[in-house]
């Protein structure tokens, strides 16, 4: 049912729309979104747009589902996410926790791949 959809889910905003929302800061977005940079590894398809603003209380599993949708993978297809090119965070880990501990230069870098890359 999601196949038709080519645009990302509405709660992810692109850089440009993030700039836009910055103007009305009184809106119901109490916490600043986190810039997440998604990088393909191995034979994973590359995403044309790599940098996304994500709410900090989203889970890692939610980001994985988003990538699956964007790349039009099945929900059953394997997709692995890695931080620091070293460890796979639990799917219920919050993006904010990872950003606070492993973010650098104002963003969190996540590598994604379709087979286990870093054991």
């Amino acid at each position, binding site marked *: 049912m999601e196949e038709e959809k080519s645009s990302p889910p509405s709660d992810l905003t692109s850089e440009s729309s993030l700039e836009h929302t910055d103007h009305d800061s009184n809106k119901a977005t109490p916490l600043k979104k986190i810039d997440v940079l998604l990088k393909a590894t191995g034979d994973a398809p590359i995403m044309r747009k790599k940098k996304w603003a994500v709410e900090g*209380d989203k889970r890692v599993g939610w980001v994985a589902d988003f990538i699956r949708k964007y790349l039009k993978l099945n929900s059953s297809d394997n997709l692995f996410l890695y931080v620091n090119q070293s*460890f*796979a965070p*639990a799917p219920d880990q919050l993006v904010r*926790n990872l950003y*606070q501990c492993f973010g650098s230069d104002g963003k969190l870098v996540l590598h994604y791949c379709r087979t286990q890359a870093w054991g």
Partner: protein
Amino acid sequence: MAEDREILREVWDGRVPVCIQLASEDHNTLSAPDPYYLMVPRLSYFPLLMDKVRKHFLRFISPDLHEEEMWLESDGMPLKWHYPVGVLFDLHCGGSSLPWALTAHFSHFPEHDLIRCPSREVVESHFMSSVKEADGLKHRGQIITNMQSKDHKQLWMGLCNDKFDQFWAINCKLMECLPEEGFKFIPFRIHFPCQPSLQRLIKPQTDDGRKVTLEELLQEFLPRGEGDRVVIQGIEVPRDTPLQWMSEHLSHPDNFLHICHIPTQG
């Protein structure tokens, strides 16, 4: 130090008694099957301990549920298998009544609250990921990446088989640091009974070389938690305990210090 090794041993030997009942909606017999009692190691993970329990209950459930994943619940809360047993116990039971009463389910898997655990290998890779993450915080990942894969295996098998010496022969390398410096950061998570865990960066020492204590960690990340209980490995650790010492002695095998924040009732 001998004294310290005794503490590691005490922590390793921690057990909690559990009594597991089959969910009433899942048994297809007239009367409920007998509950299953067992002592479970605090440092282990439920999927590693449930083979016998699953087998015990299979006789009482309808055949179409036989392939389903078994999940556990404590007083209405689904239990996250990827948290160590002791963390779940401190969060959801705390020893108010023993044994800890759990319910085993074979249907209605709570997809929103739990991650699927199709095999022991999933537990292993979750565990190794946590060890790598912790070493990333402590030593920029240098120790774990320089280890051989047989060392990784020995850590995991030591935990699975409850072999203290086997596990610590490797784990002591992950705890190495210069005494005057400590780890780069202390790997810790704060858990709450009903909300997502919190993880942040904290150094074991201030810039002028003073040891940072549990009290300072709590003040920084839980400023409004006065009066609430803070439990680590089942004990309320004195608040002036240095974080570096806690990280070396009270961490779980995944090398994280798991801090349970229990709000006062009412």
